[in-house]
């Protein structure tokens, strides 16, 4: 009876399993992480490590609790969540921050909904938002790059209180304070190119997301209209990390291309609003979480016509 497998469509298997996708994404994210370690030092590596371990352990414990197969932790998604969460943390956070963050991401953000594929919100962002709201001081205590003269807390480019001027090259290479994985735009873009070339993500979300932010910050970002420094907003903060790696998460983004464009535009509008008008310096995480909540509605109203069925 082993020759008869009853399973839902599609019945033609491609080489791209969930596991493979996860590992390619992890691979694409590695350059940015290496840059983070290079720029900020070994503390970054510690945070990344702890975050990943916490995610894997949380998932294993919860699966055991639900009496499910714990080998699921090998599908790479927990590791990916841990990696992305770490990339969103300042390099010198106390060790328990990624521990708590990882547990919250996996358990509340993913497993309570039923595991991979069932969550509504991006798990890593759930963890990050939880950490940011709970311990705002730790989550905004930055570190300068290793070679900077003053190794104490510094400002990030987006910080509104201290207006430090960073050159575009500095922003592009990551020569400034910030979260581990968001600062080195160069490495992030290399990773993004890998994802686009392997067709894992489409350009719809990143293009609409980044495009909207560029347009809005250009129009409203400066004194008077159309004087905003949109290159700055493009390179500063978590926009590139968010647009290419977090907003594009398969499970939490819309199914259709039209939906993806709406999603990206929505994220862009919210990010720009929070950056320009809100009290938080960075809005990418909240913007994506907000749009995640809208995804079921977006999917509902951008459904593609099923062939052969009338419009009602």
């Amino acid at each position, binding site marked *: 009876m082993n020759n008869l497998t009853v399973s839902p469509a599609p019945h033609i298997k491609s080489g791209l399993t969930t596991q493979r996708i996860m590992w390619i994404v992890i691979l694409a994210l590695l350059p940015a992480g290496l840059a983070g370690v290079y720029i900020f030092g070994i503390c970054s590596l510690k945070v990344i490590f702890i975050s990943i371990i916490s995610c894997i352990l949380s998932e294993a414990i919860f699966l055991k609790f639900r009496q499910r197969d714990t080998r699921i932790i090998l599908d790479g998604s927990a590791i990916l969540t841990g990696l992305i969460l770490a990339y969103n943390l300042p390099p010198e956070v106390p060790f328990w921050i990624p521990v708590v963050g990882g547990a919250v991401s996996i358990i509340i953000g993913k497993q*309570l909904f039923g595991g991979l594929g069932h969550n509504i919100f991006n798990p890593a962002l759930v963890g990050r*938002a939880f950490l940011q709201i709970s311990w705002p001081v730790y989550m905004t205590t930055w570190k300068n790059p290793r070679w900077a003269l003053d190794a104490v807390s510094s400002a990030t480019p987006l910080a509104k209180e201290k207006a430090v001027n960073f050159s575009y090259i500095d922003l592009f290479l990551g020569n400034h304070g910030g979260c581990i994985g968001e600062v080195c735009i160069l490495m992030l873009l290399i990773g993004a190119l890998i994802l686009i070339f392997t067709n894992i993500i489409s350009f719809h979300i990143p293009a609409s997301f980044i495009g909207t932010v560029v347009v809005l910050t250009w129009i409203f970002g400066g004194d008077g209209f159309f004087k905003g420094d949109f290159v700055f907003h493009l390179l500063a903060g978590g926009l590139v990390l968010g647009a290419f790696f977090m907003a594009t998460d398969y499970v939490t983004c819309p199914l259709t291309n039209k939906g993806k464009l709406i999603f990206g535009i929505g994220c862009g509008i919210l990010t720009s609003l929070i950056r320009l*008008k809100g009290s938080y310096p960075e809005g990418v995480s909240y913007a994506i979480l907000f749009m995640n909540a809208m995804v079921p509605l977006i999917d509902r109203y951008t459904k593609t016509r099923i062939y052969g069925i009338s419009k009602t």
Partner: protein
Amino acid sequence: MEYNQLLMIAISVIFINNFILSKFLGLCPFIGVSKSTRPALYMGLAVTFVMTASSIITWGIYSFLLKPFHIEYLRTLSFILVIASFVQLIEMFIQKFSPALYKIFGIYLALITTNCAVFGVAVLNSEMFLKVQDSFVKSFIFCLTQGFCAGVGFTIVLLFMSGIRERLEFCDIPRPMKDMPIAFIVASLMSMAFMGFSGFRF
């Protein structure tokens, strides 16, 4: 007229201090009616209508009855009686003149009578605007705006929630968490997302 202030009230009540996700007013219908999109939309519209109307009526009562005669302590009693009667009247009105509309909206109206949200917005209006304002026109516009926008905020969140819960029907949620607990968790995550709006200034 300071339009800025009105905009701030609107943004505040819809996003920053959203009635459901921040003030917890209106949780009962939120959990109860948010299982699918269409009822959610109708409930939201009904609530918005009742909230707006109640804001106007309670503005009238407070400004012309309670304050001049210094019987503000009768606020709770008068507000709730008026709101309940008003909703009852609307129900009867709709039932008589549009049975079709009643079939759709009827049950929701009954649920709204003792809804924290409607009574809450009236009390909130009186605390924020009516106790301090002296100009009738100003307080009227503020109350009206806040009442309407509170309803809008309520409807938006209800819609989001219904979309999510429809999708959750297909998810492998652990049995103890099914239905209500996971709804609260989702609300918690939505509340976290809405916190991104804090501190908005225009």
